[in-house]
């Protein structure tokens, strides 16, 4: 079983999960920002940041079954979008790559030719940097979170905007429950407002929204710094959040959570 990691040290590494051994290292000219395995794990999509003369780019690498046969070669490199690409993931059947980043525009690329197939509508799309993106379990829709204090739900195949969730804070991380129709948004605050926002401990919340009705259900407080990462346990019964405060918090839902009715 394999793990792929991307780092600011300008490398992407493959690891063996059971043993912890490093299997392979890909080298790049700039920090690697986002990684994702394709369906079937034969390909991986990697994004790199803009750095010096290099623009940001999306790389597709073939992953060999046998790590000894792994090569550095890229199947495809897409250059183009302005600014940092914060996330790139595979579309259904690996035919497309979905990217989102600093310029707030979601793009769908052909994974074989690298051609730009679709761009999200500017009017209804995000207005500021898209910080996070997460796919549904079946890949049919995905959720993006942005510094414009909102998260949006999109159809992966047509890039139609389906839902919008509005909060009071810039969104750094998003997650979708695999079990119930809930989405979770985690965020922070504008850097300029650091000295004027409520600094009392535990005020940063992971906010839960009803996915269909777009209404806020509740929040889980605890972090005393902005939340940067959110992930659901695949069984849907717990989730974890990581924050600027240096803590990772594991939350297990009590039975009432599963009975929430608005």
């Amino acid at each position: 079983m394999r793990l792929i990691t991307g780092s600011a040290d300008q490398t992407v590494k493959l690891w063996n999960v059971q043993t912890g051994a490093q299997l392979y290292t890909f080298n790049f000219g700039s920090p690697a920002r986002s990684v994702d395995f394709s369906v079937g794990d034969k390909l991986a999509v990697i994004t790199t940041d803009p750095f010096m003369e290099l623009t940001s780019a999306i790389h597709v690498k073939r992953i060999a079954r046998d790590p000894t046969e792994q090569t550095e070669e890229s199947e495809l490199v897409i250059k183009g979008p302005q600014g940092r690409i914060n996330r790139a993931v595979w579309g259904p059947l690996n035919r497309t790559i979905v990217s989102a980043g600093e310029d707030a525009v979601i793009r769908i690329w052909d994974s074989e030719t690298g051609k730009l197939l679709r761009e999200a509508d500017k009017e209804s799309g995000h207005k500021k940097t898209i910080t996070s993106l997460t796919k549904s379990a079946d890949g049919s829709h995905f959720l993006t979170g942005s510094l414009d204090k909102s998260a949006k739900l999109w159809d992966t195949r047509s890039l139609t905007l389906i839902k919008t969730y509005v909060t009071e804070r810039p969104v750094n991380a998003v997650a979708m429950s695999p079990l119930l129709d809930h989405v979770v948004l985690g965020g922070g605050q504008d850097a300029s407002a650091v000295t004027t926002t409520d600094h009392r401990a535990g005020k940063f919340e992971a906010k839960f929204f009803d996915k269909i009705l777009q209404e806020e259900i509740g929040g889980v407080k605890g972090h005393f710094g902005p939340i940067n990462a959110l992930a659901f346990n695949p069984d849907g019964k717990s989730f974890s959040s990581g924050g600027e405060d240096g803590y990772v918090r594991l939350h297990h839902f009590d039975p009432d959570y599963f009975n929430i009715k608005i």
Partner: protein
Amino acid sequence: MAAEVMLMNEIEAKAASMGIDLIIDFNSIQLPRGEDCGIVSDDEDVYHDDHLEFDSGFGNVIVVDNLPVVPREKFEKLEGVIRKIYSQIGVIKEDGLWMPVDPETKKTLGYCFIEYNTPQEAELAKEKTNGYKLDRAHIFAVNMFDDFDKYMRVPDEWAPPEIKPYTPGENLQKWLTDEKARDQFVIRAGTDTEVLWNDARQSKTELVYKRTYWTESFVQWSPLGTYLATVHRQGAAVWGGANTFNRLMRYAHPQVKLIDFSPGEKFLVTYSSHEPSNPRDANRVVINIFDVRTGKVMRDFKGSADEFTIGGAGGVAGVSWPVFRWGGGKEDKYFAKLGKNMISVYETETFSLIDKKSLKVENVVDFSWSPTDLILALFVPELGGGNQPARVSLVQIPSKVELRQKNLFSVSDCKMYWQSNGEYLAVKADRYTKTKKSTYTGFELFRIKERDIPIEVLELDNKNDKIIAFAWEPKGHRFAVIHGDNPRPDISFYSMKSSHNLGRVSKLTTLKGKQANALFWSPGGRFIVLAGLKGFNGQLEFFNVDELETMATAEHFMATDIEWDPTGRYVATAVTSVHEMENGFNIWSFHGKLLYRILKDHFFQFLWRPRPPPFLSAEKEEEILKYLKKYSKKYDAEDQDVSMLLSEQDREKRRMLKEEWEKWISEWRRASEEEKLERQKLRDGEASDEEEEYEAKEVEVEEILDFSEEVLFEE
């Protein structure tokens, strides 16, 4: 793009080639007739401004009449006297003083012309010297030279004015008849100004009217809520209507900075401050008083800022606003201004001083009208190091009879607080201790409506406590004081009419260690919000003063403004753009339940629309109270209907959203099914979409720990 530079010879060459003679005879050019050369200005406001001074060339000249008629020998002496008087006001132009002489009698004609360098000086001279008594027989009559022209143009024949057809006005009070008895408020955020209904039942607002750039600086309601005033560069305007806001009237006042309505909405006072021509002088202040409905200027006041800043600390524009304070409630009959050693009280029949002179009060520094009666309270501080004590006086207007006075010894400063019905006056007096090193505070409480106006002195339990806030209960007999030197001060409640001690003030309770620095009574009394603004970052405590218990504590982080709605049912708290984050407002019920909140960036103002006092007679009000249960049944039923309707609407909306979602899901499922085979191929034949499933197996392991043999019986 760089500007194109053309050489003169190029121009001449071009002109020559076109047959144009470049030499122009300017005298032969005929301009179109009229002030505006026949060109219509698109800045029409400028031309409708009556206060524009057209440069006639004589704007700096005044005519002084009623001078003594003197023979040649006395010319120089008279001229010297005139010159001395008028040089004090401004710089008389060289050869600017001319006293015409009758060619036959060789005596002066009794008037003279004086020319200054600027029209401002001339105006100031006219203001100051008109009515000046040279001696008993000669009182100066001073006018602007240009005024003569104006008055002489009045036609000799009187022509009756045209009668315009009657257009009925809109019902400006229509908002009071809202079926759901809602209140309105105005908010300003960014460049938008909006008037909204507070629909608390549905926990939301409803738009009445919105306009971008409606005002150029701020907005203000008139005291009875009839008009909304906006302030612009050229003056102020008021808006109102039945269902929307139309501009009802404009008031020209260039560079107006502050406005104030009279309590009955009959008059609007506007203020502006201008840089003087001589930088060492104080600013020049212009105050106009307009009739609200007709827009006519009833009176103007012009002078140096020094004349308008006696007493109170100078505020934003250098004066303590409002400069003119209105007295006697909604009648709008009198207004008064603090002056040096006097209080000038004017009446609105003629807009002149009552009895033609100001009320002389040596060293007066502050005054305050009763909110309901024609009584002025004024304060004179201590003089001569204690020889003449400070005093508070109550003076009746217009008789100027002193109703009551009290000397206050060792008082360094004082502040006056009237109760809303004019029943009580509290004077907070800061006194020096015997050593003069520190001050302690006491209250002089005047019972205005009782015979001889008895005064009671109240000191706090701990005399040395600093007083942070004081507020009378509106329409009630109680007051609240925030006092103490700790970071969390105490709050005490007193009553002027307690059950056992009818004539004496008594303390009801003291709440210790509160995070509060401001008091907000409900307009009907009985309830109060104890607020911690600024340093306390928006703490709110909703307190029931009848029961003396806290109803709720809450917080609106960084709140800057708090205002009760005029009915006392709701409280609005707001965070304005003083702070960068989380601008917007919250609406709470009177007992502290948050009903809804609206976030708006760059939030500047929140103002409830005031309501006029009820039109019902006292008897009718009593009757309604008596049968309240009967009336309220009808409204309870209505409330039920509304909430049922709401849920119905809500349910419908949700049902539709869920239906729409189901459509998406089935679409995705269909696409996914179609692609299922493809996916399998990608996974090298693995059928399952799930990530590698792991199996948890329970395995029983038997492990032999020890083996031992024990012989039981030996045969």
